């Protein structure tokens, strides 16, 4: 359905941002992403991962430079038009509101005046919650609740999904489930996913990793390039040991876990 050609869908052009005027937080940042990319943002606490996602989603406005989505300045879009292109899930989601799965997923239709391409039932099926469609989200497990919000973004039809630490506080089982789901959705619908992370081993699951330190990109590339002892030392100020798979195996062919890992 989709060709391998990647259009630029998100572009940071010399972006600067500060929470208070005296101290720049994001400094002269430039990068671009194409459709269908699966990118992990990795960095220590306070390095600027969440801020980058909030800037990319238009929640925060840049102090300097431009952010373009699909070739147009992000702030030039009407709210509803922007919402059809990108969706953002914050780290902290209210999981205690007694909406049903269906009600919450239906909210993905809000930017549309006509029915979106993907129906609510289809989205619920994609995240494997058909049997729980009428359940209250308060009755679901932590991993299932995250999947409900992911289904909402699917209905929203966004080609770019920005997720702020979606794996935080999830058991390893749910982390794996959610990553597999996102990879599946990426393959099926050619969406680009950008996800803030804190676990270096999880970062190995991504096609591309952006390593951030103090509001600047230390390195942006495939895991082999980024996850080096020196760069990780710079980013996290810790010594780690990188255990590589046998030379005969290609990192790109890696399935899920266990073949490359980082020993602390």
């Amino acid at each position, binding site marked *: 359905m989709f060709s391998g050609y990647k259009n630029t869908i998100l572009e940071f052009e010399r972006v600067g941002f500060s929470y208070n005027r005296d101290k720049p937080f994001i400094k002269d940042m430039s990068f671009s992403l194409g459709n269908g990319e699966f990118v992990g943002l990795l960095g220590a606490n306070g390095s600027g991962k969440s801020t980058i996602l909030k800037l990319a989603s238009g929640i925060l406005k840049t102090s300097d430079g431009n952010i373009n989505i699909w070739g147009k300045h992000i702030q030039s879009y009407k709210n509803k038009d922007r919402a059809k292109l990108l969706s*953002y899930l914050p780290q902290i989601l209210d999981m*205690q509101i*007694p909406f049903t799965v269906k*009600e919450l997923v239906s909210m*993905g239709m809000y930017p549309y005046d006509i029915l979106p391409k993907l129906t609510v039932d289809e989205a619920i099926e994609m995240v494997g919650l058909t049997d729980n469609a009428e359940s209250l989200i308060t009755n679901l497990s932590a991993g299932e609740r995250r999947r409900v919000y992911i289904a909402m973004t699917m209905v929203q039809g966004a080609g770019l999904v920005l997720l702020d630490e979606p794996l935080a506080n999830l058991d390893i089982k749910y982390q794996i489930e959610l990553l597999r789901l996102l990879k599946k959705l990426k393959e099926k619908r050619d969406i680009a996913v950008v996800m803030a992370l804190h676990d270096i081993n999880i970062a190995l699951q991504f096609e591309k990793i952006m390593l951030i330190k103090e509001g600047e990109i230390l390195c942006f590339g495939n895991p082999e390039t980024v996850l080096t002892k020196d760069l990780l030392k710079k980013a996290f100020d810790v010594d780690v040991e990188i255990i590589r798979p046998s030379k005969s195996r290609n990192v790109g062919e890696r399935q899920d876990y266990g073949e490359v890992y980082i020993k602390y």
Partner: protein
Amino acid sequence: MKLKLLIMVLIAFAIFTVALFIGPRVINPFSINEIEKEILISIRLPRIIVSVLMGMALGASGAVLQGILRNPLADPYILGISSGAALTAVVGIISGLAFWGTFTIPVLAFIGALITGVFVGAMGWKRGGFWPERLLLAGVGLGFLFSAVLMLIMSISSDQGLRRAILWIFGDLSLADWSVIPYGFVFITAGFVISLSRANALNALILGDELTHSLGFSPRKERFILFVSVGLMTAASVSLGGMIGFIGLLIPHIGRFIIGPDSKILIPVSALGGGILLCIADLIGKSLLSPMELPAGIITAIIGAPYFLYLLRRKDVLRI
């Protein structure tokens, strides 16, 4: 869902009809004489309409406010709007102002409510938008200040007008007449329609400002529009018949218990529930110790508080 709504509407009509024919004097609908006709048209019907309008405004406002403030304890009075209305109205009652005939007190209350609403809004505004916590604290602070001034005025005033003022504060529907209904109707309907048209945005606001943005709304703009709708409904309600407590807090929780938290349904259901509760409370208030009347606000609290406490024990109910 549709069945539940239909049952609620039928209950509402049954109660409104009963309230029309039952009261200090029971009227047989099948044999009505001239005096009874006059009682029905000039006294009972306007009173029922006022109580329903007020109840609707308070119920809907409570549902909206609990959403935009993300606080299950919010009600229309927490923003201090009613205290502002009470202050101007009681000053008018005690000083015997009557520059606009029967309109004087409603107009004074409406002006007091609007000025307070604007003031609370200004206090809650920072960096281009409303901040829920600031709004809430500004409302609570201003409410305390106005209540203190109100008590001061009442404690130094003579007995004349004092009873009327006290009745008004607890919700006095005995002076309801046709003249004020069109004005109340216009403001309450406007507020209701505005809030219902923003129901999707309200659902999104319940999930948080960042998700609201992600779903294609401006959280600041939506919160402002919804605040204005609540201000209009509350000001109109208070000016029609004084302060009726508990409806704005209780009814949205009952609504969520019955039909869930979706604002598209919760706002109309809360309006309907508010209308039903106030109509029942007023019917009890005017019939129980007839010919003496008890303020409807006291009855709503006496009926509402035990049910509210019962709901407290139910899991997942007292949440926005």
